[in-house]
């Protein structure tokens, strides 16, 4: 469990990091942020990058900020930065609720939001949040940047559209309506485990009916995604118990569940159904989250 040899870079400026990345990209050069996914893989020699570009010294990449109705989550924003609401309104508590479900306390002190997107684990809570909330990934390379909708960015398990010489400098999340409600539920066997199913839902309530429904499912398929059929079935109707039941059953029928030695497909469908139902119930019962 010792990593294979690699060259270590620790630039202090973003430009410098992009420079190095452009040079080493061809030799499996990689960014290291929190190291909470990369280091275990290197210890098992499943990843053997020849170069590591450590971005932890780059002050301009730290933390989060709100700019014109957008929450900017920079590359070094840690999971723990969301323990307290990062902004007022429903999005802060939403992200705080989600963050509590990621790994364990020490891991949350190091692991990053942007690193989670770059890593694209099917069970990443942040990937589900970014996709469901309509986030945008800012991919930067030496001399340029592009914006990629989170839903297009994540291609499959541990696969994204990021080029080897690009890094995620930030992820942007639109700040929702102040009256928005949300619910999140994930199932796992022990606190902190990667979840085999989770669901995040947001909507606003107008005259007893729900509108602007966003409903995402993560952990259960190769990538997290919004289920637009379920959203449509819920939109512009009162959120009754019967609607919740219908929506959870519809969600379960729409997914193509992952399968592994411990979690057969029909069971995965069952816990998706449960997660969607409980996320909707949480949203139903709360103004600002759970």
């Amino acid at each position, binding site marked *: *469990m*010792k*990593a*294979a*040899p690699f060259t270590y870079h620790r630039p202090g400026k973003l430009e410098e990091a992009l420079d190095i990345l452009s040079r080493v990209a061809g030799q499996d050069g990689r960014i290291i942020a929190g190291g909470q996914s990369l280091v275990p893989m290197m210890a*098992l*020699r499943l990843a053997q990058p020849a170069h590591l570009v450590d971005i932890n010294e780059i002050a301009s990449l730290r933390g989060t900020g709100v700019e014109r109705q957008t929450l900017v989550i920079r590359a070094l924003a840690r999971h723990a930065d969301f323990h307290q609401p990062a902004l007022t309104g429903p999005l802060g508590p939403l992200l705080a609720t989600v963050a509590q479900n990621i790994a364990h306390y020490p891991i949350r002190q190091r692991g990053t939001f942007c690193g989670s997107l770059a890593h694209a684990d099917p069970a990443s809570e942040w990937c589900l949040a970014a996709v469901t909330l309509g986030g945008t990934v800012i991919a930067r390379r030496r001399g340029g940047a592009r914006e990629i909708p989170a839903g297009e960015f994540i291609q499959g398990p541990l696969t994204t559209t990021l080029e080897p010489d690009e890094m995620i400098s930030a992820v942007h999340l639109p700040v929702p309506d102040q009256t928005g409600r949300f619910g999140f539920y994930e*199932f796992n*066997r*022990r*606190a*902190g*485990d*990667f979840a085999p199913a989770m669901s995040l839902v947001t909507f606003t309530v107008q005259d007893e009916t729900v509108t602007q429904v966003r409903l995402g499912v993560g952990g259960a398929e190769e990538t997290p995604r919004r289920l637009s059929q379920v959203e449509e079935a819920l939109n512009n109707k009162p959120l009754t118990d019967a609607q919740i039941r219908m929506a959870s059953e519809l969600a379960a029928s729409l997914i193509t569940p992952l399968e592994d*030695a*411990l*979690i*057969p*497909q*029909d*069971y995965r469908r*069952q*816990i998706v*159904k*449960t997660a969607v*139902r409980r996320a909707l119930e949480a949203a139903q019962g709360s103004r600002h989250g759970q």
Partner: protein
Amino acid sequence: MTPNNSVLGASVSRLEDHGLLTGQSRFIDDLQLPGTLSAAFVRSPYGHALINGVNTEAACQVPGVVAVYTLTDLQPWLTDTRMATGLPSNSFRLDVNPRVLAADEVVYVGEPIAVVIAASRYAAEDAADLVEVDCEPLEVVADCRAALLADSPGAHRKLSHNLVAAFDFDYGHVEDAFRQADVIINESFRLHRGGAHSIEGRGAVASHDPVTGKLTLWTSTQRPHGVKRVICDLLGCNDDSVRVVAPQIGGGFGPKLVCYPEEVVVAVCGKLLQQPVKWTQDRYEYFLSTTQERDQYWDVEIAVDNDAMIKGVRGALLHDHGAYTARGLNVPYASGVALPLAYNIPAYHLDVYAVLTNKVPVTPVRGAGQPQGVFVMERLLDRVAAGLSLDRAEVRRRNLVRKEQMPCRKSLKLRGGTEVILDSGDYPATQELALEHAGWAAFGERQQAALEQGRHIGIGLANFVEGTGRGPYETVTVRINPSGNILVATGATAMGQSTQTMLAQIVAGQLGGDLSLVSVNCGDTDATPLGFGGFNSRQTVVAGASAHAAARAVRDKVFRLASRRLEAAERDLEINGHNVFVKDMPDRKLTFAQLARAASGLPGFKLPVAESGPGLEATESVVIDDMVYSNGSAVAEVEVDIDTGQVDIHRFLIVHDCGRMINPALVEGQVAGGIAHGIGNALFEWMGFDDNAQPVTTTFADYLLVSADKMPALELFHRESASPFNELGVKGVGESGCLPTPAAIVAAIEDALKPFDVKLNQAPLTPAVLWGLIRPAPGISAPEHWRSPGIDTAAYRKGVLL
């Protein structure tokens, strides 16, 4: 200062704490001798394969690499290529001792093939990646049930079958019992236990002194004396030229009981290279190469009369033995003994088949097969209760061994041939106390009320009796040094269970009660040449007895000498701390230092007390053949989330009796740890292998241990039935917590799921398995581990074997 009489039986703080809390305790990886080289092993990627060749050329080129060895390179230094580590038994039909390194055939994933020695572990692993092993995969034996079928391949190429051993338990008139029974209940069980997963894995450091010619091996083992025997024999050394030391050990829990290939290889390399060599096992290697307990399949039936009185139990047990005999038949043997211990069962027959598979060998994990025996018995009794519409506790009440039967001779023999005699305890009273604390009688109402709110709660009960204190002896030396401190040396081995504190309390109980004077040297073959070590919940009983006897002998010497010097009768003397004084005259005193100096003698003068001999020292090896039996009753209360199959343990309580407690806090620590392990076995721990016997759970992300959020607050209660079989009245406690736990939890889950009428005959129970049992969706085939277990004895009979 603690007065004499209160140190024994008190929850004093541990001798071990200071070193552990200040980071001064030295574990294997902390031992860093000058010039130490690192070892990394090249391991089999296949469950079963031929080795056509091993190419080490590229590996040898890696900077920092000192040597790469295969068996061929080491063979000139070894007297044999196989390691005799198992206990003898005439039930063996096949002789499959582990190899030091595999040379022409590998029989499990992770079996060591070659070793790389380098300046650092990094370089060693870089080079190990470059060793090319030319393997030709062979047919794999991945399932111990299929392994017994006539057409199964052999787990070893040269073997025509896989039945490594067969034996039975048999007493009473079993046929009659079943013929005369009013009710017969027949069940099949599939029980799985994973590994032990001590925080510290295995590891060893070897250092050869060219001047004295002595080889020292520090190794993370539960049995330094056992390791020394294997090393001496394989290296052809005499006993004086090898020293094996178990330093601070970060947990053992069973698997560190056997000597492993890596220990032998590290020892040989240290000698060959004349430089210290260290190997520290990482967790991945632990999963691959440290022994496990794994699979048992049981087909059993119980015969009872209409009053639920047990007439007999019979059946068969199929036990996954793994690829080699690393310890012997003790796990299935202990399963078979554990089943009938707590109850009056007039007739018993169990056929036991130990079966080779292409998996890492099976040896005991905390509990050593006993939790499985308990599980089977307890589940059968729950079925009897259901069948006769009786309360589950009532069925047990009628059949438990009663107090007035003690000492109760069972018609069973221990593996060494001695009889099983339950020494003491009041099993029915233990159960009653547990039921009372649990509110057993009122639970039905709570369950009904919960159900009306759509919540599924359940309660389960399990009793156990554990054989502890395996003999024959453990040597203990007690010495008061001329500097006044007390040294205790023993072959007993501490692996985190506070053995030092326990022995110090027993010794201090005789010698003044000041624990700060006592130091305990465990697990060093030079300090104590004869010894067995830590396993089988034995050391408090066996080493405790010798410590008690040796301390008393030293106390006698102290009094004899002090009585002459202080001119007082021995009966008028007392010891407090390091002072020996005349009762009520604290100024007429001598210190331990003064007495020990006097007892050492002066050149040309007579010894002060000729009949005591020189010094204040005694060595005792109290021989103990009969085991002593701890018992207990556990009650679990759970809630099942029927939408996910998730189980929450709301309450877990145990009433526990391990005789007289030397230190109640340590007893509670042991019981709590055992329960945690038992919860793991009930709900989490699953060592998975695929059809090619490739392990699929090789990190703690896949192999789930119980985590803090899944541990209920434990409710521990004690009874103290002093054992009449040893002077201290003690019984062992290291394993007992895990014995009743899976049975109680699974019973509680079954109770919670009464509305679904499920039968739970397996452990562990994962949420997916449970949900599958609650809602088997038509048309969807359940994965293998859901399917109902069962030994197809008829099919095996068609084979040549049975």
